C-alpha cells in the first residue's frame, strides 16, 4: 500500500488514525500492531507470514543475547554473530538471490535451480532495523525487548515499514511508554503529511512521467539537451519522491504520537559529497556509519595507510548494493565512494579547498547528477551510454524529438517549483519569517498554504485514476 494511493488515503489512514484515538490507551499498541500487519498483508499473505516469523526469530535472538549478556565465554559473541548473520542471509536471500543466480550462471554457464521467493516490500529497511537492534543489545546500548508486542510494533510500525526512516530500537521503544496522542501532534502530523503528499503527487509524479519517457528511449536515442533534462528531472523526482514519502511517514508517526527521525536536510545544497551524505537519506548514512564504518575503523585501527579511505569505499560499496541488486547500483555507490574517499584523503592531509563555494557546489552537483543517471538506468551499460551522450562522447541518434517535446510549459513550471522548494527559505529569510511567526497572520497563512496543498494533492490523486478507453485510433 503506497501512502499516496487511494486505498491508503481514503480508507486505511482515516480508519487507523481515528481508531487509534478512539481505542483505550492500553489497547492502542495492539491496535497499531494489527494495523501495521494489515498494511503489510496488503502485499500478500505469504510475505506477512514470513515477516511475522522473521520478527519472532529476531525477538528470540534478542532475548538469547540478553540472557548471555554476562557470559564471559564465546556464547555472547556467537549469539550476536548468529543474530546478525541470519539477518544478512535473510536479506541476501529475499533481495539478492536472482542477482547472485544470474552472476553464477553468467560466469560458469551452470543453470542453477530457480527458487521463487515472494517479494518482501521494505525488506532492506526492516532487516536493517533488526540488525541495529541485535547490535545495540550486544554493545549494551539497549536492553532486549521482553514484551513481544513492543518489539513487533518497533519492527512493523507501518509509517516507517516500507521505506523508512530507519529507526533505532532505543529511540522508538522509549516512545512506547510515552506515547501521546493530542491535538498538537495530530495537527503537526496532518500538516507534515500533507506537505509530503504534495511533494510526491504535485512534483515527483509529474516529473516522473517525463523522466520515464526519456529513460524508456534507448540510451543513444536522446539528444544531448534531452539527456541532461532527464538527468536533472530525475534528480528532482527522486528527491521529492523520497523526501515526500519521509514527510508522510514522519507526519503519520506524529499523528500516532511517535517522533520518527528526519531523513533529509536540503541535500542539493551540499558543497561536497561527504556533505551530501550528511543531508541525504540521513538514517541510512548514520546506520552505515554506526554499524559498518565505525566497527571497520576499530577493527583496522592498526592499519595506518588509507584505512579511512578504504573503509569509506567499503561503506559506499555496501550503500550502493543495499539500494538494489544490480551492477549499476554498485557502481553508483562506488562513484560516490570514490569522491567521499578522496575528500577523506584531503581532509587527513589538511588540504583545504581553495575553489569558490559556487565551483565546489557545481562540481558536487555534477557528481551527484552523474550518479543519479547510473542509479536510474535499467543497467550499467545503458547508464554509461546515456552519460556518453550527456557529455558529447557518443553521437545520439536523430529521433526528431526536441528538448521542448519533453520540456513543456507544465514541466518547466514544476522544475522551477522544485528548484525553489530545494532552497531553505526559512534560513535565508530569517527576518520576514520571524516577523510572520510573531504576527496574527501566521496561522491563517499556514492554513491557506495547507488548504492549497491538500486540495491540489487530492485532485492529483483522484486524477491519476483517470483512464480513458482508446478507440479512435482503430
Amino acid at each position, binding site marked *: 500500500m503506497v501512502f499516496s494511493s487511494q486505498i491508503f488515503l*481514503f480508507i486505511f489512514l482515516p480508519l487507523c488514525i481515528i481508531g487509534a484515538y478512539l481505542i483505550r490507551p492500553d489497547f492502542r499498541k495492539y491496535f497499531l500492531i494489527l494495523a501495521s500487519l494489515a498494511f503489510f498483508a496488503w502485499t500478500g499473505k505469504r510475505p506477512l507470514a514470513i515477516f511475522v516469523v522473521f520478527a519472532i526469530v529476531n525477538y528470540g535472538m534478542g532475548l538469547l543475547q540478553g540472557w548471555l549478556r554476562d557470559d564471559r565465554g564465546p556464547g555472547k559473541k556467537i549469539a550476536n554473530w548468529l543474530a546478525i548473520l541470519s539477518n544478512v542471509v535473510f536479506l541476501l536471500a529475499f533481495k539478492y538471490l536472482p542477482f547472485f543466480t544470474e552472476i553464477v550462471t553468467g560466469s560458469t554457464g551452470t543453470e542453477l535451480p530457480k527458487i521463487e521467493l515472494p517479494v518482501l516490500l521494505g525488506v532492506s529497511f526492516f532487516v536493517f532495523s533488526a540488525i541495529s537492534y541485535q547490535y545495540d543489545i550486544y554493545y549494551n546500548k539497549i536492553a532486549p525487548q521482553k514484551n513481544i508486542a513492543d518489539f513487533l510494533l518497533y519492527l512493523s510500525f507501518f509509517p516507517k515499514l516500507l521505506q523508512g526512516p530507519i529507526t533505532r530500537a532505543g529511540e522508538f521503544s522509549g516512545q512506547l511508554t510515552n506515547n501521546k496522542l493530542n491535538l498538537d501532534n495530530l495537527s503537526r502530523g496532518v500538516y507534515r503529511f500533507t506537505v509530503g503528499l504534495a511533494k510526491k503527487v504535485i512534483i515527483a509524479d509529474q516529473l516522473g512521467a517525463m523522466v520515464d*519517457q526519456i529513460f524508456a528511449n534507448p540510451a543513444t536515442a536522446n539528444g544531448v539537451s534531452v539527456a541532461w533534462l532527464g538527468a536533472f528531472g530525475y534528480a528532482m523526482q527522486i528527491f521529492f519522491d523520497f523526501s515526500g514519502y519521509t514527510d508522510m511517514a514522519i507526519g503519520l508517526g506524529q499523528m500516532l504520537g511517535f517522533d520518527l527521525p528526519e531523513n533529509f536536510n536540503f541535500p542539493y545544497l551540499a558543497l561536497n559529497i561527504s556533505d551530501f551524505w550528511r543531508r541525504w537519506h540521513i538514517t541510512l548514512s548514520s546506520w552505515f556509519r554506526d554499524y559498518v564504518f565505525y566497527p571497520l575503523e576499530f577493527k583496522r585501527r592498526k592499519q595506518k595507510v588509507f584505512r579511512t579511505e578504504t573503509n569509506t569505499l567499503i561503506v559506499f560499496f555496501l550503500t550502493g548494493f543495499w539500494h538494489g541488486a544490480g551492477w549499476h547500483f554498485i557502481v553508483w555507490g562506488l562513484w560516490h565512494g570514490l569522491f567521499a574517499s578522496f575528500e577523506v584523503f584531503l581532509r587527513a592531509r589538511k588540504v583545504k579547498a581553495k575553489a569558490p563555494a559556487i565551483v565546489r557546489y557545481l562540481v558536487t552537483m555534477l557528481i551527484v547528477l552523474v550518479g543519479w543517471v547510473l542509479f536510474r538506468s535499467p543497467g550499467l551499460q545503458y547508464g554509461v551510454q546515456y552519460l556518453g551522450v550527456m557529455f558529447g562522447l557518443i553521437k545520439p541518434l536523430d529521433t526528431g524529438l526536441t528538448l521542448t517535446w519533453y520540456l513543456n510549459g507544465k514541466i518547466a513550471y514544476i522544475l522551477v517549483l522544485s528548484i525553489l522548494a530545494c532552497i531553505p527559505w526559512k534560513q535565508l529569510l530569517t527576518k520576514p519569517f520571524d516577523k510572520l511567526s510573531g504576527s496574527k497572520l501566521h496561522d491563517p497563512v499556514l492554513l491557506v498554504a*495547507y488548504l492549497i496543498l491538500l486540495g491540489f494533492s487530492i485532485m492529483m490523486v483522484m486524477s491519476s485514476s*483517470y483512464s480513458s478507453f482508446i478507440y479512435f485510433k482503430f
Partner: protein
Amino acid sequence: MKSTLFKVLTVIVFFAVLLLPVLESDKIGGALSPNENRYLAKFPPLFTENYNFSPEFKSGFELWLNDNLGGRQKLIQLSKTINYRFFGELGFSGYRVINGPNGWLFYAPDPEIPYIVNSFVPDDAVKMNIKNSFERIAEGLKGSNTALVVGMWPPKFDVYPEELPSNLRLVNTYSAAEAIDEELKNASGFSYASPFDELVANKSNFPTYSRAVDVGHWNQYGAFIGYSALMEAVKEHFPALRILTEEDFSVTEVERELKTDWGFASRETDLHYEPKFTRSAIEDAGFFDRINFVSKDIWKSYRYFQNPDTTLPKAILVGDSYVWQFLLQNMAESFSELVFIHYLDLDQLNSLAAVVEPDVIMLTGQGFPAVWALSQVSIQNLSAEIISHDTPATIERGESYNVNILVRNTGDQSWSEDDQIRLCIFQDGKDHGYRVHLPEGFTLEPGQEYTFVLYNLRAPAGDTTFLEFQMLQEGHQYFGEKERVDIVVK
C-alpha cells in the same frame, strides 16, 4: 500552528477531505463514464459462488474505490481545466494528442512517433518483402478466382506534415507511408488503391482531414477521395463495377464541433454527402452469429451488407476505422455481399473466405504498420464437404453409439493433426470442445475423403438434441460445410 482553533480546523478539514469522498462514493459502481468512454468498476463480491472468500476481492475493491469516490469526476474535470487553461494541455488523458501552430490536432502515442517524424523509413528489403507478400497472397487467391486489392490510407501527419508542432522535427522528408506507397504502385498481380497523392493535392481546395474535431481521421471529403481510389482499384478486376461519384450526392457544407468539459473546443467545416439515390444495400446484423464468428475486435466493427442485385461481385473488406466509420455504406452499394472485418480479426479471414467465397478481397489499413501487418496474412484455402454420416435419428438413454462421418477435403491445403485440423461436433448449437482427430502422422490431401468416427455417443438429459458437424483448424477457424442432424431421445 499556535492557535487551537487553527489546529482543529486543520485536522477537521483533513479528515473531511479523506472521508467525504468515501461517504459520497457510488457504492454499487458500474456507471458509464462518458469522458473516459468506459464503465467504471463495480463493487466486487466478497465471496465466491462456493461461499469462500473471493481472492479477487482485494484488487476489485481497489478498482472500485479508485473509480467511484465521490467528487472524482468533478476533480478530474477541474484538473483538466487547470492543465488546459494554464499549460495548454489538451486533456485527452490516456493517449497523447499534440497540436500544431494552427490548431491541428494529431494522435501521437509513443509507437507512432517514429512514423510522425520519419525517423523510421523502411529499407529496400522491407519494402520488397511487403510487395512480394501481397503478390504471393494474390497468387494464392487465383485458385479460388478471387482478386486482391490492397489499399493504404495515409496518416494525417503524412498528409499535413506542415501542421505538426515545432517541437517535432522531421528526420527525413520521406515518410514510411510514402516509401511503401511508391513500392506498391509498381506491384503486379494485385491492384493497389493509393489516394495519397490526391489527398495531398486536394487539400488546397478543401481540408481532406479533420483539423481539430477528430485527432486521427480524414473528414468526409477525404474519405470520399479514399472511397473513389479503392473502388477504382477494384474496378480493374470488375470493369462494370458501379462507382458512386459526387454527382450521385447533393454535397453541402456542414459544421462539426468538438466540445470538452474542460474547456477545449473546436469547430470546423466538413462536407456532407446526401445520396440522391435510394440505398439498396441492407445490413444483416445476424450474419456473424450464424457463422460462429469469433472476434478480437473490441469495437465490434464487423458488418455484413447484402444487395438484392446478386449479379454484383461479393467482397470481403479488411480495414480499420478509416473504413468502418466512413466508407462502408457507399461501398455496400456496389457488391452483392460486402463483409467488413477489422484487421484485428485478420486471422479469421480464411474461414470467412470459405463461407463467403468472395470475388474480391480488399486489404486496407492506415500507414506503414497496418500495411505491414496485412502483408503478413497467410491465405489458406481450407474447405470441406460433409458427404455422409450415419447418426441415428433416435437414441435410447443408457445406450452408446458410434457415428461415422465421411468428409472430403475440397480445399487446396492438406490436412493433418500437426496443423490441428479436426472435426468439431457442436451440440445444441454450441461448441463444447468435442473433437474427432485425424490419426497422428496421417495427411489428407486435397480431393481425398476420410471417415471420422465419433465413439460412444450417449443420450443427453433432454428429450431432444441436435448435433452439427464442421471441420475446424483449432484456435483459428471453423471451415467448410456444416451438417446438422436432429435426434430424439427415448
